[in-house]
């Protein structure tokens, strides 16, 4: 996702790091919750009793991880060449 001019960093909010940690947990949890809900709906419509739920919960967990990656600003569009930050920008040193 190329950054548009004039947009502020959506991850910015004047909260403590504890609040940030809660938000990371919440993003993951909401992915699983939506997967659970969709799984129930799919099973209800198509009568594929456990399998829709299983697949949707796994996809929901994947979506939750994706949300966390986006929130941390680590890209999230795995095949785009534009938005992956270099490790120096993240403040890490890779010389070890």
């Amino acid at each position, binding site marked *: *996702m*190329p950054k*548009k001019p*004039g*947009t*502020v960093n*959506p991850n910015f*909010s*004047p*909260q403590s790091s504890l609040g940030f940690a809660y*938000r990371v947990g*919440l*993003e993951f*949890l*909401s*992915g699983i*919750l*939506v*997967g659970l809900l*969709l799984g129930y709906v799919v099973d209800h419509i198509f009568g594929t009793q456990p399998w829709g739920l299983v697949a*949707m919960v796994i*996809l*929901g967990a*994947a*979506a*939750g991880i*994706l*949300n966390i990656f*986006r929130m941390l600003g680590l890209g999230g*569009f*795995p*095949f*785009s*060449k534009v938005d992956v930050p270099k490790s120096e920008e993240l403040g890490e040193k890779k010389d070890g």
Partner: protein
Amino acid sequence: MVDPLHQFMIHPLIPLKIGGWDVSFTNSSLFMVLSTLLIITFLRFSVNPRALVPGRLQLISESLYEFTSSLIRDNVGKAGLAYFPYIFSLFLFILTGNLLGMIPGSFTFTSHIIVTFTLGVLVIVSVTIIGFVRHGFHFLRLFYPQNTPLFLVPLLVPIEVISYLTRMVSLSVRLFANMMAGHAMIKIFAGVVVTLMGTPLFPVALVTLAVNVSITGFEFLVALLQAYVFTILTCIYLNDAINLH
């Protein structure tokens, strides 16, 4: 009396049943109506002088207006100002609800997940409709990550769709959890104070009382902050729909 969750109880004030549905006018509805009326009367009468140099009340409503419009301009751009009334009402409704809840003995309607979830669903549904109206089926590109190999599309598109749908859950749970946790925490600490005050352990009660005072101040911060967070996230989602990447 020392029941921290009692404050979240909903009781019908005017029992009402339409076609088997319980649509009673509850204390929650009462505070929603109150906050709406409060917003309307405040905005109506604070700008009444129409002074070029605003007085105190006029300044409050003008800066609320300016705050929201600059939020939209920064996050969405000029095109987003068309949706200013919606975002402004959303912001004021949540803000007033949160602040009304800080009055002792009142009811915080934003501490109920069904209220915040309705607001969240409303945001996502309207943003999706806006996206489809502005871009047509091109809007579906939002769910297609750029340069995806074709064999991964059946896997990645459902993940993107679920990720899009999680927005309403995280949006609503964030507001609800913050409000409910804060109010329950105030009541729990107050319960400790009441229980220990008459006993030899009363110094503990005094410390707890001091903590409770600071928590109450913190709760005002949370009430303002969560209204702001809800609004800015709405702006960001609107930005995704209006300015497709």
